[in-house]
């Protein structure tokens, strides 16, 4: 536990045919931090995410979780180790109730998930914990609502609660505020802040005001590699960051001027 970094990548590379999506990324996420991964579209943020959660296999490089090499572990296995991700599109089970959504996550640790001969009632003892989690994201009233009928913001809240049910040490959130109105965004910021207590969060986020409110440390990704790192102050004052956000035109102009 002396290692201050929960997650570390060493020279992480992902090549698709003739195209390097992630280029030599060395990322270090400190325990207890809310760490943001930002960058313009196509910078490779989601690819990095998919590498970290093993939905993609790295071409080269290593991924360490608490010092343990998890590069060759499977998605489901690292989830049980405590690295749990959310998705860009809201990842819920649409035709289950809100409560059942959470229960499926809790069930993951029960060791009865292959018990096809057991009554479903054996899961009811998880219901109290489900209600606690639903309550923590303000969804207690919707416990028995079928998820597909929930509003978008509530689905995201449910997704977060489901992720929390896994008691993850490291939460990976892929654009938690994507597609939300400003009211919902504020709510999610609060939820993430609450959820982050006692854990580490790595999030991809477009909304810089969210990043400024939440994040302890920021890594800026551009064209597959890390451009710079620091807190919001440092990063936002870095001219190179502005450059990549202003787009290629501004950058080439500047290069020409130099």
């Amino acid at each position, binding site marked *: 536990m002396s290692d201050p970094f929960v997650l570390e990548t060493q020279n992480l590379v992902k090549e698709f045919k003739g195209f390097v999506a992630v280029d030599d990324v060395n990322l270090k996420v400190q325990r207890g931090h809310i760490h943001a991964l930002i960058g313009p579209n196509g910078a490779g943020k989601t690819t990095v995410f998919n590498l970290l959660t093993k939905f993609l296999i790295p071409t080269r490089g290593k991924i360490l979780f608490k010092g343990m090499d998890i590069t060759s572990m499977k998605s*489901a296995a690292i989830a049980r180790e405590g690295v749990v*991700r959310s998705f860009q599109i809201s*990842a819920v089970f649409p*035709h*289950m109730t809100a409560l059942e959504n959470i229960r499926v996550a809790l069930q*993951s*640790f029960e060791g009865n998930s292959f018990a096809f001969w057991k009554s479903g009632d*054996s899961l009811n003892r998880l219901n109290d914990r489900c209600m606690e989690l639903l309550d923590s994201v303000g969804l207690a*009233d919707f416990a*028995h609502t079928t998820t597909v009928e929930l509003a978008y913001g509530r689905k995201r809240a449910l997704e977060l609660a489901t992720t929390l049910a896994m008691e993850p040490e490291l939460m990976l959130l892929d654009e938690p505020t994507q597609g939300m109105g400003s009211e919902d965004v504020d709510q999610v910021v609060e939820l993430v802040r609450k959820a982050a207590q006692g854990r580490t969060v790595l999030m991809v986020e477009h909304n810089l005001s969210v990043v400024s409110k939440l994040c302890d440390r920021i890594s800026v990704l551009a064209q597959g590699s890390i451009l710079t790192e620091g807190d919001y102050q440092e990063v936002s004052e870095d001219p190179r960051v502005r450059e990549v956000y202003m787009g290629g035109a501004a950058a080439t102009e500047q290069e020409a001027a130099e």
Partner: protein
Amino acid sequence: MNNAETESELQKTMMGHLKADRRRKLILNLVILALLILAPAVIYATFLMKILCFALFAVAFNLLLGYTGLLSFGHAAFLAAGGYTTGYLLSSYSGLTTEMGIIAGTAAATALGALFAIVAIRRQGIYFAMITLALAQLVYFVFVQAPFTGGEDGLHGVPRGHLFGFIDLENNVAMYYFVLAVFVGGYLLVQRIVNSPYGQVLKAIKQNEPRAVSLGYNVDRYKVIAFVISAGLAGLAGSLKTVVFQLASLNDAHWHMSGEVILMTLLGGTGTLLGPVVGATFVVNLEYQLSQGPLGDWVDPILGAIFVLTVMAFRSGIVGEIQNFMRKNMS
């Protein structure tokens, strides 16, 4: 405090609804069971047994399509594997009691299912369907060529034998109640499975597989088990069918049969327990009625048209549409 109280009130009424819903379903099932017990008094027992065998086949198939989200296009292989194994054993070894032949048939189909699953399970969607189809075709040609299947003729005159060694199944009434008991057992097993902790995971996988993975589930293992159970139950249906009709034929192994079970399940309602039973009843009845009348040669086009209509207009199937209708009009 007040808020918490109303919340728990809400919880209670919700739970009350769930219980009432469960009770309604139980009553419905008991009524159907009572009708099935009385049915041979008015309907030809062999015809009823045919329906029950196909209903069990469709129920088995639906465990996969309706509750796991896997479309197998090769389930005829399991029906036939059960049928041929049972037929061969009962014809060859007169010392064998009927239930032993059926158990052996079921076991053979289960083993074949495991083989299919290992090859196909990593593929998604249409590729999964295609691989199961290809494997089933392979099995079909084995059944055409193998020495113990009777080739093009199939196995005829399979003795029904004695159940547990002392109940004579040549008696059609005894045979019917045995088929009914097996069917009810299979149906209850599937009902138990879909409502079990394991069934919850299956539903989760069907509804959002990547999310299920991210919650720590090794989804391939869950799918393999569902596939193997489904294959085993399909084999059980095939074994029963062979005993009832004293016949195992290539029809059961033909891809046409794999298509028919898809039709039955979709028509009745995927993802509902009763749907495949209703679908099988409907299709078997329709085929029988048509074959009696002047439209006998038109069975396939008519079934095809019904298939298209179901997929285009009644996606939830007969039982699904009824459920939707009741839900809309009761709340």
